[in-house]
């Protein structure tokens, strides 16, 4: 199989001639570059510059819930379970629920 016989030379010449004007387009070049592996520095920068989208409705609900937990006193409903009876100057407190004290 000689590369330099008449047929071989002609094949090579035709192939070279047919591909002479072929160059990768800028679009293809850019597309390839976009997919390259990024360096650690770029990854960090990308993370810092990342835009975060927060949906408004769930965010407000969440914030309101957080406020409620932190601002409303925990014993707000406690008094509803208590009855105070005045028996001749003595007060008897009746609780519907009861607490189990830890030893």
């Amino acid at each position, binding site marked *: *199989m000689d*590369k330099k016989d*008449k*047929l*071989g030379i*002609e*094949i*090579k010449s*035709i*192939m*070279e001639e*047919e*591909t002479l004007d*072929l*160059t*990768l*387009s800028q679009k*293809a*070049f850019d*597309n*390839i*570059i976009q*997919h*390259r*592996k*990024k*360096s*650690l520095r*770029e990854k960090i920068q990308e993370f810092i510059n990342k835009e975060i989208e927060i949906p408004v409705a769930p965010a407000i609900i969440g914030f309101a819930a957080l406020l409620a937990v932190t601002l409303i006193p925990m014993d707000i409903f406690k008094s509803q379970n208590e009855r105070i009876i005045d028996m001749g100057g003595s007060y008897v407190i009746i609780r519907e629920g009861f607490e189990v004290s830890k030893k």
Partner: protein
Amino acid sequence: MVAEELLILNLKRGREEAYRQLIEKYGNRLYRTCYLILNDREEAEDVVQETFIKVFKKIDTFKGQSGLYTWIYAIALNLSRDRIRMKQDMLELKDEWIGSYDVESLVEINIDRELLKKEIFEMNSLYREVLVLFYFEELSIKEISNLLNEKEGTIKSKLSRGRNILKESLLKGGR
């Protein structure tokens, strides 16, 4: 070789300049070869893009057992073959070529360039692929055999068959 090692190192580090350098160095060459194999400019460009993207993803696994271009080339050829397979253009070929007669031994023929060009692009890609690697890329039988992971005998058979197809057509003056 040192320059190539440096390029690989910078690719592994993710340096943009190295990526640009790699595409500038091998992009057009790869595109031309893929075009000759696929006979379709758009498809060839797609394959080149896919090849480089794959190279970028797998660059950390590159051990340097073969040259960088050989490695890139092997990826491109596999992707080209996948495309061809999708078109069901490939033929099954046995290791031995059994021709009707030995066209190789025929006396030199007059070559009709236009006809030869037509035949090159119309022949089965299985043979065209080897012709491209042998004549256009100027690879040896051994290099092609390593690249395609096929026996040297198979490559010789394909090459011989490819040449015979072209010679027969030239002798007949077209199909």
